[in-house]
């Protein structure tokens, strides 16, 4: 089961769910866009009536704040109540988003509760762009992190995400030393990270991390992307295979995970 938390502290240009980045500004732009009249503004709050929702996502398209009106609030106990009935069907739960570590208080409490009351593994997807001690605290509770490493070259990282990568590299190293990095993930983006230099550098960095951590390499896909990035080319399959081959050369085939295009 995946639980997607709203809000992100990066602005990756290739994000395929950009509506998870922002927070509602209660501007009401989404209200008239809904064909089922599931949205309304009342007392300065946005109200979402799930029963009327047709999941057409016109509200998401209309939103200027990079969020989705179809979000809702949950306490850790309420999350547990949703998880319990389906626990037999699950091996684990992954917190994702957005950047789930932005809601660290909820995340800590929810993880503690799930670990206490269920037999599920709890993982967290993170971009690692966070205060170190927050991640280390979280590392005490979750079973592991799926850690994004978007680019090694500082300039490339800045252009791609809006921020530099120094804190990310520091955090990845620290959390890896705690034995809590399950997988490092990178997306190969045409015009940014689809170079031999980048892929070798990423693979090399993962190689030098403590504990033998696998690297998952994913090709860029325009699906879900917003803005001019929608017109970016999809990764060429042969180019992608070549770059994956380079990653395997550096890291070893058993530590590189990819899906065929």
């Amino acid at each position, binding site marked *: 089961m995946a639980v997607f938390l709203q809000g992100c502290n990066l602005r990756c240009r290739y994000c395929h769910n950009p509506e998870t980045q922002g927070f509602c500004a209660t501007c009401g732009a989404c209200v008239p866009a809904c064909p089922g009249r599931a949205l309304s503004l009342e007392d300065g709050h946005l109200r979402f009536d799930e029963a009327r929702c047709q999941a057409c996502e016109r509200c998401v398209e209309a939103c200027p704040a990079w969020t989705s009106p179809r979000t809702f609030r949950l306490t850790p106990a309420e999350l547990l109540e949703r998880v319990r*009935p*389906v*626990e*037999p*069907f*699950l*091996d684990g739960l992954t917190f994702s988003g957005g950047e789930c570590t932005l809601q660290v208080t909820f995340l800590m409490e929810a993880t503690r509760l799930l670990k206490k009351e269920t037999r599920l593994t709890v993982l967290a997807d993170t971009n690692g762009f966070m205060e170190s001690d927050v991640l280390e605290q979280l590392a005490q509770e979750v079973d592991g992190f799926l850690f994004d490493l978007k680019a090694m070259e500082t300039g490339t990282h800045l252009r791609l995400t809006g921020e530099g990568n120094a804190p990310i590299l520091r955090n990845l190293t620290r959390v890896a030393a705690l034995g809590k990095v399950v997988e490092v993930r990178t997306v190969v983006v045409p015009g940014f990270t689809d170079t031999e230099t980048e892929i070798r550098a990423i693979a090399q960095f993962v190689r030098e991390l403590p504990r033998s951590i696998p690297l998952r390499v994913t090709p860029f896909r325009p699906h879900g992307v917003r803005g001019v990035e929608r017109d970016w080319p999809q990764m060429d399959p042969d180019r992608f295979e070549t770059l994956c081959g380079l990653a395997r050369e550096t890291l070893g085939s058993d530590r590189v995970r990819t*899906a065929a295009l």
Partner: protein
Amino acid sequence: MTPALDILRDAHLEPWQKRNRLASAAEDALPDLPVGPSVHRHLEDGILCTLHEGQAPYRPRYVLPDYGKLLAQGSSYLDLEPARDLFQAVNALLTAYRFVPSITGYPVYLGALDTLLEPFWAAESPDVRERLLELFLVQVDRTLPDAFVHANLGPQETHVGRAVLALERRLKKAVPNLSLKVAPETPEAFLREAVATALETNKPYFVNHPDLAVLWGEDYGIASCYNSLRIGGGSHTLVRLNLSRLARGCPDASTFLEQRLPEAVEALAELINARVRFLVEESRFFEASYLAKEGLISLDRFTAMAAIFGLHECVEALTNGAQMGRDSVADALARAVTFKARDLVKAQRAIHCEGSGGRFGFHAQSGIAGDQDASPGIRVKIGSEPDLFRQLKLQAELQQAFDAGVSEIALFDPTASQNLDGVLRIVRGALATGLRILSLGRSDAEVVRISGYLVKRRDLERARLQENLREETVTLGEEAVRNSRILERAVRGL
């Protein structure tokens, strides 16, 4: 012209098809069995249905011979010695299969292949035994061309079991139908193989062995669509009750539960007993049958099945539109109807049913090709499905009512093949929640689960073009696809 002459003049039929239809025509021309006016009324109103079994049954609907006994003792009628090696065992089984009666004319139960063949496996070289097993499966598909032909595996892991799963993945035929009994001790790696096969072929069924063993003991088999019956026994007949039709025009749930349903079940019981009486006492099947004489079946291991279907539409009608799986009021009524029907059925006296304690077996009937406004058994209507886990939980609760067979079908999108562990987790979870029998597969699998039986996807196309096929169940499948939106079943992501 008489029906017989029309059949003989049909240029689309092979001679063996003409012969079968002639037999059916003769059966249909027989007078009704002696039953009361309530039974006639329920039959005319389409509430009770005998599934074209024929006016007067002369062989049990489902027969599950004890093939283990056959291999051990041989057969005088079949002129077979006890099997001493894999060749003889395979030969004996293939011979016996041609002499097992049923409603379809083909054997609906092929035995637990792993239990039967594993003792002979080690003595042959790997090349020989693999080839022999493959040809066995190929011959079953070619000479028993009927999707209700059903083999079993499990719950233990065996070489034969693994080999069958791998072969089925490669052969991708609709025949045989296949079930894997699953127990907590069934090894994960073996179950994973079964999941891999299921994703490609929608078989095997995953069967809740602990639950069914409590009901029947260890010696039960899964036969035909998904009937759970005693080995060495079977079911004399099956008559089904259309809950959707029964609810038509019914003013409220209370009238349905307290009046209509009890009346219908009484009529159902009377009709079943009349048919059983004819089979056992007038056609005297058990006196004549070599299977009974040689101890491969015995009357005291038989049951007769009372079945329901159309629950979704029944609940929809009685609640003015509430949907099972989505509306809690519908779920509550579904439970009430299912368990009330079960209790009513089990309160009836059933003749010649010592195999089920003198009571009828209770079954969720998976529909026939012509059904249009009644979902199979107790399933959620296609097009109205909720999220998978919610659906499985509801079905698990309702499935607990049925001892003689019930099943649920789940389809996954093609990415499921990259996440076998996820699918495996769902299988374990579903069975742990109380589901009794589960079919699963990919939405693009070459072999498609219609409602209880399988059909090859490309055969559906050939049937649409009116090609006359050896495997006649394809025709049923094609009709069912047209009538019941089979190909629109919800596809789940993982």
